[in-house]
C-alpha cells in the first residue's frame, strides 16, 4: 500500500481550532500535518464544490495533539512541547518557523516525554493551561512563555482541561477523576470520581474520563463511565446521558449537550437528557468538535477518519470534507517509487 493511501485510510485528527477572524479552520493530525480550510468556502452555495485545503506539514515526528488559536498565533500542543506558529491572514500561510516554544519539563522519574493532551486558553490574561501526559497541568504565560505554576494530583495522564472565568480549573484524566482546581490553592479544591457511581460505571471500558466541559452552573464529563452532568456547587450527579460509546468529546452547545466518542454517531441532548439530534459520522472515533455562531454558523467534527464533518445548524450533517486528497498542489507531487530490495534467494539443498 502506498504511503499516500495509507495516510488517507488512517488519518487521525485529534485537534481543531478556528482563527480569531472566524474565517479559517485548522485541523491537525497524528501524521504531523495541519490542514487549513477557508470557512467562506462552505458558504458558497451548494452548486460549486468547496475549494481545496492548504496543508502545512510539521514533520512526521510531530504528533499534533491539540490546537488553540490566540491573536495571530496557532498554538500547537505536541509531544513534550507547546509551540506557536504565526498565521499570516493575508497570504493564508502558517510560518514554517516556530515563533516560540515552551518545553514541558520532564519529571525526575519519568521515562517518557509527556504529551500535551489538552489546552485551555484564558485569552484575557494570556494564560494557557496545558494538560500533560504525566498527569500534570501546567499554567503557561503567553506573554513571556514562562511556566507559572503546576497543578499536581492526577495519577495518570490528563485527557481534558477547561477553565472558567471565576478562576476555577477542571480536569479529567485517565485515573478516573475529575479535579477542580483554584488558581489560589496548591491542592485541588474538589474531586469527582464518576466510576465509583454504579449508575455511571461501564465495567469493561474502564474508569478514565475522556472529556470535561463546564458552563456557569454545570459540569459535564464522560469517558469509560457514562456521560453525565454534575451541579457545580453541590457536585451532585443530576443527569446521565445514554450515549452508547466511549466518550472522547463533550461540550455545552447553546442550551444543549454535545457528546461524541467511539461511536458512529455524535449525539446532542437537552439538559434534561432527551436525545435531540443523532448525527451519523464516518469517524471510528470522534476527538474534536469546534463551532462558531457568527459570521458563518458552523460546527466541524473531526476524528479518526480522513473527513471533517460540517454541521451548519448543529443538528444535521451538512457536508463532509476530505482532508488528504483534497489539498492544493497535491496532484503535482511525484509518485514515490519505493521498491523492496531483497537479498538474492539461496536455495537450500533438498
Amino acid at each position, binding site marked *: *500500500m*502506498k*504511503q*499516500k*493511501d*495509507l495516510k*488517507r*485510510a*488512517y488519518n*487521525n485528527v*485529534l485537534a481543531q481550532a478556528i482563527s480569531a477572524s472566524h474565517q479559517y479552520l485548522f485541523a491537525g493530525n*497524528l501524521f504531523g500535518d495541519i490542514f487549513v480550510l477557508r470557512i467562506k468556502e462552505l458558504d458558497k452555495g451548494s452548486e460549486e464544490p468547496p475549494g481545496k485545503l492548504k496543508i502545512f506539514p510539521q514533520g512526521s515526528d510531530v*504528533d499534533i*495533539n491539540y490546537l488553540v488559536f490566540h491573536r495571530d498565533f496557532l498554538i500547537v500542543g505536541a509531544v513534550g512541547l507547546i509551540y506557536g506558529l504565526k498565521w499570516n491572514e493575508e497570504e493564508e500561510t502558517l510560518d514554517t518557523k516556530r515563533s516560540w516554544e515552551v518545553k514541558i519539563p520532564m519529571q525526575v522519574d519519568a*521515562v*517518557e516525554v509527556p*504529551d500535551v*493532551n*489538552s489546552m485551555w486558553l484564558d485569552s484575557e490574561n494570556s494564560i494557557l493551561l496545558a494538560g500533560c*501526559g504525566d498527569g500534570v497541568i501546567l499554567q503557561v504565560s503567553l506573554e513571556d512563555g514562562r511556566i507559572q505554576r503546576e497543578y499536581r494530583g492526577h495519577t*495518570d*495522564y490528563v*485527557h*481534558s482541561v477547561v477553565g472558567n472565568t471565576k478562576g476555577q480549573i477542571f480536569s479529567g484524566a*485517565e485515573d478516573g477523576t475529575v479535579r477542580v482546581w483554584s488558581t489560589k490553592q496548591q491542592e485541588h479544591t474538589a474531586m469527582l470520581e464518576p466510576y465509583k457511581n454504579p449508575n455511571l460505571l461501564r*465495567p*469493561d*471500558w*474502564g474508569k*478514565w474520563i*475522556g472529556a470535561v466541559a463546564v458552563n456557569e452552573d454545570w459540569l459535564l464529563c464522560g469517558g*469509560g463511565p457514562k456521560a453525565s452532568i454534575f451541579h457545580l456547587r453541590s457536585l451532585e450527579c443530576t443527569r446521565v446521558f445514554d450515549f452508547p460509546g466511549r466518550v*472522547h468529546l463533550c461540550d455545552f452547545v447553546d442550551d444543549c449537550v454535545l457528546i461524541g466518542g*467511539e461511536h*458512529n454517531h455524535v449525539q446532542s441532548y437537552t439538559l434534561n437528557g432527551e436525545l435531540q439530534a443523532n448525527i451519523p459520522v*464516518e469517524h*471510528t*472515533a470522534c*476527538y474534536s468538535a469546534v463551532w462558531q455562531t457568527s459570521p458563518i454558523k458552523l460546527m466541524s467534527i473531526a476524528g*479518526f*477518519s*480522513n473527513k471533517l464533518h460540517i454541521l451548519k445548524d448543529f443538528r444535521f450533517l451538512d457536508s463532509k470534507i476530505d482532508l488528504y*486528497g483534497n489539498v492544493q498542489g497535491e496532484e503535482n507531487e511525484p*509518485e514515490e*517509487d*519505493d*521498491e*523492496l*530490495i*531483497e*537479498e*538474492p*534467494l539461496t*536455495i537450500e*539443498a*533438498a
Partner: protein
Amino acid sequence: METILNTQFDELQKAIEGIKEAKSKGQSTDEARTAATLMFVALKHANREVKHKIKDGRDKLHLEKCKVDLSRLQLQNLLYEVSHLKKEIVRCQKFKSRDTSLELLSEAEYSSKLPDMANDEEELSSHKQHLHRLDCELRLRKELDKQYSALLSSKQELLQDNLSHAQRYVSFAPALRTLQSATKPLHDALQLSLDVEWKLSAVVKYLPKPLYVLFIVLQSLQRVSEEQSFTAEVVGYESEAQMQQLLKEKKYPTLNHRQPETETGEQYKIGKSSLEEALASHPLHICLTIGAAGSNQLVLQIRYFDLIKCATVWGQMNYSSNSNSQPDTNFVHHLLRHLYPNDLGTEIPIPGIQHELRSSDLTAEECVRYLKAKDFGKPFCWLQSMCSIATVNSSMLYNHELNLNKHTKEIIDRIARRLNSWQRLSQQIRGLTYKDIDLYSLKENIYPAGLSCSLVQWTAITHEEFHSQISDVLNTSSGDKGITYNSYRAVIVRGSAKMECFIRIPSNYPMEMPLWILNVHWNGCHTSQNNSAIKMMEFWTNSLQPKHLEPNDHILYAQLFRTIYSFDIFLETEGSMQNTIEYNKEKPYISAFAKRSRSRPYKYIKKGSVYAFKQ
C-alpha cells in the same frame, strides 16, 4: 477731338461765310482772310493731333492682337495636352501590373509574419496598403532568398565534409585489414578464435532486425558481466528462416524493403480470413533465461511480428530439480505486467499501428487477443525499448531508447530483482500455508520473550470473500492501474480471543506492500470500523515499509509478527480494564494508554539491551 474739329470747322465756315459776306458786300477781306488762315494753322495742328492719335490706336490694336494670338496658341497647346492625357488615361486603364499574377500571403499570414508593418496602415487607401504589402513581401522574399542560399552553401559544405570523411575512412580499410592479419599470430597464441565465434552465430543474422539488435546487446552484456546472471540464445532453424525469406522474395519480387506500407497492405489484404497467417511470427526467436543455472530460472521467449512491428514476450518458470518448491507460475505474469507502471501490455505501443492495421482490415485488439491466445505473450513498452523500437504509450508519450546497453542491463536487473522478490514471497506464502516454518525462531521475531498468540490457519480466499470486509482502506486506493490481487485469510488465536486477518497481495508487488485488514472476535466483533484501537493496529501493520526492513527480512513474516505483537498488546491493555482478568501484562510497556485517543503501545523500541513497546 471731334468737337474741337467741329468747332474749328464751324468757326472756319463762319469765317469763310464772313469773308464771302464781306466780299459780297465788298468789304475788305484781308483781315478776315488772315484770321481764317490762322485758323488753318489750328486746324493743321488738330489734324496732326488726330494723326498721332490714330497711330496710337493702331499700335494698341497691334499689341492686343499679339496678345490674342498668344492666348490662342496657349489654348491650342492645352487642347493638345488634354487629348494627350486622355490617351494616357486610356493607356493606364489598359495597363496590367505583374503583381496581380503574384501569389501573395493571405491577410492573416501577412499580419502574423510582418506584424510591425501591418499595424500602422489603417488609414491608408487600399491601393497604398497593397503597395505596402508588396513592399514588405519583397523584403521578406529577399530575406528568405538569402537564407536559402546560405543553406544551400552550408549543404554544399556538409556534402564536401562528408565526402572528405568518407575518403578518410575508406583509406583506413586497408590499414585495418593489414592490422588484422598482423594480429592473427597473436590470436592463435592466445587461443582466441574470433572467426569461430562469428560462425557460431551465423543463424543470428537471419533474426529480424530488432531481435538482432537485442541479441547483440545481450551478448555483449553477457561477455562484460562477470557472473552469469542470464543467458540468451536463438531458437529456431537457419534453414527455416532462409526458406521464409526466399518465399517472401518469390511472392513479391517487385517490392523491395523500402516500401513496407504497401507491402504489408497488399500482403495482408486477404489476411482477414487467416489471422494466423498474417500474424505468423518470425521462425527465429530469442530465449532469454534469467537466473543462475541450478536455481529456479525465469525463461522469457521473445518473438517479433512483422505485421504489428513489435516484439512480444512470454515468460515461464523453469524450476530446478533440487528445490522443493511447488510450481506457482502466476506471478511471472504479474511480474512482467507491472515491471514498469502503466505498461500493462494491453495494446500495441507502435506509433500509427492502428492506421496500418486498418488498411489490412485488422484491429489492434484482435491482434493482442490472438497473441494472448497463442501464448506469444504481450507487447510491453519496455520490451520494445530493449529492441530499440520507438513506442508511444497509453498516455501518448513517445519514447525511443538509444542507450541500449545501459537500459537493457537495467531492465534485466529489474526483472531479476522482482523475480527474487516474488520467489521469496511465494516461499513465505507456502511456508505459512503448510506451516513448514518455525515462527518462533524466525529472524523477524524481534521480541525475545516470544509470542503469546499463535497462527492457526492461513488459507487462500477468493476476491469476493476479501471484499465482503468493510474497511475505509478499500475505498481509498488511488486508481485501478490494472492491479489484481490475491487474497488470504489468517487466523490468530490467544485464549478465548480470535483474530481474523484478511491479507491482500497486489499483483504489482513489490511496488506495493500486502494490505492487512483485521477483525478481532472477543467480547463482540471489533473492526477498524467500530474500534479505534483495531484501526491503529491495522495502521501499524500496514505502515511497514520496505525501508523499515532489515536485509534478509521477509515482508510477510515481518507484517505477521507486527500483527501478532499488536494483538497481544491489544489484549493485554484491554484486559487490564476487565473485571475477570484473562490476559496479564506480559509485554514490557510503560503505559497502556496515551493521548486522548488512548492509543496503545504497538511500537517496538530497542535501545541496546533494553527494549519496550511504546505508543
